[in-house]
């Protein structure tokens, strides 16, 4: 599943958007992962992960952290968000030192992620490169909507709900932070970047004023 890879929006905005992943390999290192998962979470939180979650429980913006931790199983997939390159460096440095043996993936703009790897002294093994969207692109929603909906790669965020949230902020019924959290809660994986989302909404609202 490549649900963090194909995000849209201006590059400068994407540069403030990184996803981290912890992955067990089926049949190899996928038994009793909970103790290692808890160490991953501790390192990610210490590095400043703005959001994280387990698709089996939901994101921490919607559920108590202890609830998500209690429900970790061998089927869990832990993922989260960083908003700064320094956080990625810190996270990778600490995870490498822990030597937990599970696969670690960082998704983002390559000119940010690759230097972060170098600084943390980890060596990229493989990369899934995004070659963008092909086909009937003329039927896609507008770029602002896409820059929000693509932060949930499983597309759990309906485009019409994005329009609704922006409208609510314009009318003063919600703040951009409140709207971003409501959108974030659609994404069960915890990879939605609510900080970037609030900035995108804020920019749209300012532009329309």
């Amino acid at each position: 599943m490549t649900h963090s890879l194909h995000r849209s929006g201006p590059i400068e905005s994407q540069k403030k958007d990184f996803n981290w992943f912890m992955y067990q390999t089926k049949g190899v290192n996928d038994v009793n992962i909970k103790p290692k998962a808890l160490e991953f979470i501790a390192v990610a939180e210490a590095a400043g992960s703005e959001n994280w979650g387990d698709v089996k429980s939901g994101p921490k913006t919607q559920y108590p952290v202890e609830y998500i931790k209690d429900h970790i199983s061998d089927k869990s997939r832990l993922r989260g968000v960083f908003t700064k390159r320094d956080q990625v460096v810190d996270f990778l440095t600490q995870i490498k030192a822990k030597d937990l043996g599970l696969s670690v993936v960082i998704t983002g703009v390559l000119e940010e992620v690759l230097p972060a790897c170098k600084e943390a002294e980890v060596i990229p093994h493989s990369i899934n490169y995004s070659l963008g969207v092909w086909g009937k692109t003329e039927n896609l929603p507008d770029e602002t909507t896409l820059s929000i909906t693509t932060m949930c790669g499983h597309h759990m965020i309906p485009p019409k709900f994005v329009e609704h949230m922006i409208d609510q902020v314009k009318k003063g019924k919600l703040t951009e932070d409140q709207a971003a959290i409501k959108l974030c809660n659609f994404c069960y994986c915890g990879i939605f970047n609510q900080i970037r989302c609030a900035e995108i909404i804020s920019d749209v609202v300012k532009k329309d004023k």
Partner: protein
Amino acid sequence: MTVINKDLCIGCKICQKYCTVDAFVYDKEEKKMRVDQDRCTECYVCLRQKVCPRDAIKPVELDNFYKQFQHVLSDPVENHGVTGVTGRGTEEVKTNDVSGRVKKGQVGICIDMGRPGMGVYLRDAEKVAMACAEAGVELASQVHTPLAALMPDLTTGKLVDECLGYHLLSVIVEGNCQAEELKQVLQALKKVSKEIDTVFSLGLIVRTDENGETEALSCLDELGIPQPHRGKVNVGLGKPLTLA
């Protein structure tokens, strides 16, 4: 499947804001909502978010294999039965440091059909899978990727006819080719992208050198395809590490 209980529905249309594929339709004569069963992907967002103030949206038992397949692939909370993976059921680059699915000299082709957000009828996924197979892609088996369960012959990419009318939020066409075959695969994808009624997001998985670089993407310039600026980087901390 998901249906509207018309005794409860008041036609307020709130549900339309919450549908990922615009499957809620307002019936002007009845002044009630209905679910376009052809478009609904059974993603269950409307059910999970409890969007209806009258609780009129109801799940009905998914009574055949294809409906269940549609739901499992469209709802990331579900685990795929064979691969055991949530989401759309494939590990692709995320565990390549351990699994070694894509080796040096190969390119993994990872085509997110229907992404972003348009959804995909399996007839369009079939067109893309067949184009890949014809261009030299060795399509992944169902041990690795769910779509193969509907593909009796991996060498052609043809899907079973019974599934072609089903609409999914997304499904991945996945396989490997040799690096020297990438150009012809991309040419085939360019051609088939004009023949489908949806979109796909394309990912190429490559074993990189220690600086995160590769020669495999040099053919992109020849084809007028921009070099990628985003990537999903497996940083090689999984064990046992495969160096193939």
